[in-house]
């Protein structure tokens, strides 16, 4: 029963497992489900394992049981973008017109319907062109049609479902808010970084060491000798190097700030340094990169267990990375190209990663990103990327 429904869920990209489908059958078999309403709640609780998919589930359910319009992935996304564009348009017609590269007056002439049609056209065009490799959605981050993260509708919660049919509830699409990935918040960074720790015994000896106690007691011919040990504490040393110079990092300031704030509050033994674009002779302890510098060679004295984390977009002119005197600062030109400096750092720190706020899909557009990724394992500064980076950092 309901096999078709199951496959429909699968085909829209909800991870549903056959086991859970069998569980649903079991529930049906036991007469636990007696109405469509029951079926709606039960099938959702059994089949769907994340609130992210609740919205899609609602749509498929409404479609399957009432023939509502099937969720069309492309359509949904364009829909959201479209709404964002319209909002933007209402707020500041000129800016949007500029971003689309057309005359504001020309847009003003269109009727609302025509306007929407026009936006749709442009968006479709954009999807196609984007795949072709032309960066239509800007790298500069000024485009108003940047990646959404914006939810046109506020929290809408159904609350009671008593008086409504399941299909109606499903059609309300109460879970729309959860279906997109939001921006990286501090709590999410915290979750990802939780695993970054190195437990070593330290502090007062206040825990009974059972093995040692037994051993010593036996040696004492049964006279009890209780031994204590220190409990395990986190003693991970981290060097965090942040690219805070140049306009290319500007769009990413917020997410880097989040990471930085969290790291500062969470890790006791953290050293933060700053650089511009890439590392030459020195890293700076002050964000202005003027007062306190540390020479790259000095890092060799660090504990080899220290984890080195770079945060930067790794995007620059190739000569800045490869040139013998590539630095934009004259005082930094010691004759070593930056790339050999980075290599040097990767050798002193056995555990290092480079977190890049640029979306992974865009990496191959910038040559220096590839070069640096050859030296440091590079991960996207997103929840997923952070997770992978931490796994890499904690690997033995």
């Amino acid at each position, binding site marked *: 029963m309901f096999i078709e429904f199951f496959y429909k869920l699968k085909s829209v990209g909800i991870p549903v497992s056959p086991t859970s489908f069998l569980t649903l059958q079991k529930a049906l078999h036991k007469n636990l489900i007696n109405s469509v309403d029951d079926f709606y709640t039960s099938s959702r609780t059994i089949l769907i394992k994340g609130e992210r998919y609740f919205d899609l589930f609602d749509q498929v359910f409404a479609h399957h049981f009432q023939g509502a319009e099937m969720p069309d992935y492309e359509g949904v996304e364009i829909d959201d973008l479209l709404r964002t564009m319209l909002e933007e348009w209402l707020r500041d017609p000129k800016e949007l017109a500029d971003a689309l590269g057309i005359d504001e007056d020309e847009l003003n002439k269109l009727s609302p319907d025509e306007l929407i049609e026009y936006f749709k056209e442009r968006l479709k065009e954009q999807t196609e062109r984007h795949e072709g490799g032309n960066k239509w959605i800007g790298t500069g981050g000024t485009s108003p049609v940047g990646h959404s993260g914006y939810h046109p509708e506020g929290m809408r919660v159904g609350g009671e479902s008593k008086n409504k049919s399941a299909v109606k509830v499903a059609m309300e699409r109460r879970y729309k808010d959860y279906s997109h990935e939001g921006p990286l918040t501090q709590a*999410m960074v915290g979750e990802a970084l939780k695993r970054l720790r190195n437990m070593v015994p330290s502090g007062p000896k206040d825990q009974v060491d059972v093995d040692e106690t037994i051993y010593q007691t036996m040696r004492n011919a049964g006279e009890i000798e209780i031994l204590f040990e220190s409990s395990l504490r986190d003693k991970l040393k981290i060097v965090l190097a942040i690219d805070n110079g140049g306009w290319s990092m500007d769009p990413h300031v917020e997410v880097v700030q989040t990471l930085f704030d969290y790291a500062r509050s969470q890790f006791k033994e953290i050293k933060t340094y700053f650089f511009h674009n890439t590392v030459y002779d020195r890293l700076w302890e002050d964000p202005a990169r003027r007062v306190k510098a540390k020479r790259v060679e000095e890092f060799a004295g660090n504990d080899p267990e220290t984890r080195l984390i770079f945060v930067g977009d790794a995007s620059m002119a190739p000569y800045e990375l490869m040139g013998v005197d590539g630095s934009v600062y004259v005082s930094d030109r010691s004759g070593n190209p930056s790339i050999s400096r980075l290599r040097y750092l990767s050798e002193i720190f056995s555990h290092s990663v480079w977190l890049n706020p640029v979306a992974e899909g865009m990496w191959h557009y910038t040559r220096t990103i590839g070069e640096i990724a050859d030296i440091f394992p590079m991960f996207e500064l997103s929840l997923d990327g952070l997770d992978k980076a931490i796994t890499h950092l904690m690997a033995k």
Partner: protein
Amino acid sequence: MNKINKINKDEQFKGAKKYVLDEELAQIVNISMALEMPLLLKGEPGTGKTMLAHSIAESLKMPLIVLNVKSSMKLIDALYQYDTLTRLNDSRFGDSNRDVSNIEDYIKMSKIGQAFTADKRTVLLIDEIDKADTDFQDDMLDVLDQMEFDIFEIDKTIPAKQRPVIIITSNAKKDLSDPFLGRCNFHHIAFPDPKMMRKIIKVHFKDISTDLLENAIDTFYVLRDLDRIEKKPATRELINWIRALQADPDFKPKKLIKGDVPFLGVLFKKSRDYEAASNNVQRRRMF
């Protein structure tokens, strides 16, 4: 077999004194109980995930056993403890009535063990599972799936006498591992809408005046919807806030309409959020 599985009318969960339950959630709890599967609850902090387990226990008159997961926890800590030191002590002095050669005398059940060995069916709440690492989660689900675990020291298998009703909560935005999810039912508790909230507040404050109720809830939802708030105040904060308002003899509900909102610190606990909220309140008062 079939008879046992059929839900007895008395055994159905219909909400408790201090918990306002929506139909949907009741259905989910009942079906999870009937299928004997753990129910994984997610949702914003303060939406009553933990409270749900308490109210199930209360309304079905089952004992509640709470396992608060800690980040350093190992699975064995949740199952049983082998008290080596006492045994060592007894073997040296021999003045207790425990039998030193019988290791079983030195095994103490921890939370999951207690739920398994209890004579009555219990509600087992595993709170904040996301704190522990993935291995712990997967191993624990193995135990809960098979409804038995081994005590290695005495080479004995402890089966569950009664399958406990298992409620697991998680605050994580991140998904738990696939094998874990595969063995649970899932529900996400959404934040209650104003209508539901009124009910919830009425349950907690029996003799609250309509004036205070309406104004407090209106103000609360306005403040909750402010931009740039990182930790939004939840039901728990609202309840505490109303309690604070009631305790203040100078407070009058009319003040809230005018934009005079006292005790913001009860609602906003992060200094940045607090500032944002109090700025907003002051601005509203000016106009």
